[in-house]
């Protein structure tokens, strides 16, 4: 022997699996067998900001279902004792003692020089807030969605007190309540508008992409013309054309229709180009060769594969609609009181001199920006998730 130690003979008792190299873990298997929508959901979940924005928007949209409950006062209730009252801050401690959420009452005096009311916190008047309460104060009663009478609120002011978290406007109406109610209009304008624009875009873009030829050319031209026009002046002109004697609800529908009328070209263009591109894909040819009819190909194969993209781009164009409504109402061309949207509220802030003295009139700006940002992030996340195979 030369000092060489032999390695003991070893045989793995486990049966040989020739597929061990190609085998996949359960996790991988889950990934590979997941449906398209499931993949999208996983992808979407990774986009933190989009998830947060989505949750925020869901909460906002949920709030419009129960605006009456959230808002402490009725939309049109006027507290004539509190004209242009500044926001009442919510405190927890009074003189170092814990009291729970409360607001200080106001000491009101008339400034004879500037001819306006001035308000000062009255530290002796501690007005504890009540929660989940049946309101018995003026402005508490409401008709839930105009149907059921009630006065159950999330938060009520103390007996004989007031609770204006965001101040009051020129007529003494509670800004916070008005913003809560305004969400109902501002948020639905975008949804209804985008639905209309979605239908228009899908139908017109689909026709252009499917039939091609002369239809396609005409549609392309129309889209080009509409897109080459500066939107806002056109919106202004169209909404100025709405008859003055229309009822508020008709005006609301009219405005959403006008918004949709100028928004569909973007979607139609996306539909058309997607249709054209997908028509050449292998799976489409395969379906054709297997004898599928055009209708089946469109609905079964083409539509699902670009629906996600469409939803993403629709989400991205909702904010522009919300903004357009706000802008039009702000200019006084859009919705008119008594319908209250954020734009209508901002209409009161048009005069800079008023805003300089009563800055809380500008508060409706905050929800507008938050909602628009949230839609922007959500749309971004959706767009990334729309193509999970990339």
């Amino acid at each position, binding site marked *: 022997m030369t000092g060489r130690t032999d390695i003991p003979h070893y045989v793995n008792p486990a049966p040989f699996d020739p597929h061990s190299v190609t085998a996949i873990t359960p996790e991988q298997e889950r990934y590979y067998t997941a449906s398209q929508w499931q993949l999208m959901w996983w992808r979407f979940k990774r986009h933190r900001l989009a998830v947060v924005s989505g949750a925020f928007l869901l909460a906002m949209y949920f709030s419009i279902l129960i605006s009456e409950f959230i808002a402490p006062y009725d939309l049109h209730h006027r507290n004539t004792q509190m004209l242009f009252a500044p926001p009442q801050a919510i405190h927890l401690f009074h003189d170092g003692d814990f009291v729970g959420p409360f607001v200080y009452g106001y000491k009101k005096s008339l400034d004879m020089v500037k001819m306006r009311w001035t308000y000062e916190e009255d530290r002796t008047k501690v007005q504890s807030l009540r929660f989940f309460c049946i309101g018995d104060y003026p402005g508490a009663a409401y008709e839930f969605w105009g149907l059921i009478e009630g006065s159950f609120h999330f938060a009520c002011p103390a007996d004989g007190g007031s609770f204006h978290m965001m101040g009051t406007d020129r007529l003494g109406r509670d800004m916070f309540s008005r913003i809560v109610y305004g969400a109902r209009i501002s948020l639905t304008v975008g949804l209804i508008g985008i639905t209309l624009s979605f239908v228009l875009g899908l139908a017109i873009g689909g026709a252009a992409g499917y039939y091609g030829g002369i239809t396609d050319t005409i549609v392309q031209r129309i889209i080009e013309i509409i897109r080459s026009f500066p939107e*806002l*002046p*056109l919106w202004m002109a169209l909404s100025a054309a709405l008859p003055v004697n229309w009822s508020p609800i008709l005006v609301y529908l009219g405005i959403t229709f006008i918004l949709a009328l100028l928004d569909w070209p973007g979607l139609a263009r996306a539909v058309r180009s997607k249709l054209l591109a997908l028509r050449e894909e292998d799976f489409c040819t395969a379906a054709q060769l297997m004898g599928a009819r055009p209708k089946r190909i469109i609905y079964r194969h083409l539509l699902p594969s670009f629906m996600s993209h469409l939803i993403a781009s629709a989400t991205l164009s909702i904010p522009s609609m919300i903004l357009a409504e706000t*802008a039009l109402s702000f200019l006084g061309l859009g919705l008119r009181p008594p319908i209250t949207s954020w734009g209508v509220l901002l209409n009161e802030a048009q005069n*800079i001199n008023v805003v300089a003295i009563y800055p809380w009139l500008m508060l409706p700006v905050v929800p507008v920006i938050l909602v628009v940002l949230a839609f922007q992030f959500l749309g971004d996340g959706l767009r990334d998730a729309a193509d999970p195979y990339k």
Partner: protein
Amino acid sequence: MLRYTVHRLIVMVPTLLAISVMVFVIIQLPPGDYFTTYVDELKSQGENVSADRIEFLKQQYGFDRPPVEQYFVWVFGMLQGDFGYSFEHSLPVADIIGDRILLTFIVSFSTIVFTWVVSFIIGTYSAVYQYSLGDYALSFLGFVGLATPNFLLALVLLWLANVYFGTSIGGLMDPDYLDQPWSWGKMLSVLEHLWIPVVVIGTSGTAGMIRRLRANLLDELHKQYVVTARAKGLHPFKILVKYPLRMALNPFIADIGNLLPQVISGAAIVSVVLSLPTTGPMLLRALQSQDMYLAGSFLMVLALLTVFGTLLSDIALAILDPRIRLGGGAEK
């Protein structure tokens, strides 16, 4: 090149015609006309108007003729520089809008230059220093800029200026220069006031442009020719400026078509908030009082401005990019 330009010019004619029809229909849409509004207004003040006078005015301005005829009169008038008559101001439209169109043009042009300069600097920085703190901060700022509607931004700026400086930042020139002929002083005064509307209107466009430039430049920076250039020992700055940046600049020209309507739209509403003597406030007023020829001319000129801007950008793009030029009249 010539063929392409001619083709584009020919295509423009039907577009403009279609736009003029659209504008005419829109200004005809509201029920009644300026005179019904006018008579109602006078009646509500307790004054009487002789029906003869109104009838005479209506006849003079062709309101009694069928709409189609009115349309042709309007279009042919415009071709000869006659934009019709503003009832509210009792002046020919052409006399009123000239100055305002010029100022709108100045504001829009400056806004686009602002958009280019700012997005060029920030976009390049963000792409070169990707994922740096500065990149994150600027991207976030861009997002907020994209989401903030410009008229609200104008409102907030006005308020801040009022609170902190006690001045009003509205207007486009010193009040002394209003209705004065153009002079050096007026020019300088306009330049002094210009930056606020330019920043306000340009924010969202700039934010969008930054994102596009950043994405484009990032794509280019990861290409092999950059690696090659670096391997050969070229100075990083020279590499950046000489090749990828040039490639990434395409959207600056190509996007004018999208940017211009956006800028003009923005200018319309921002000028109402900031009370600029541009087209916005007057258009708003004209629409409200049904001063149809004034409103129609504004809409038409704004559309013209956009269409011509797009045409210029298309031609510039064709000069820069041979693929488009050689494609003849083919659409992108």
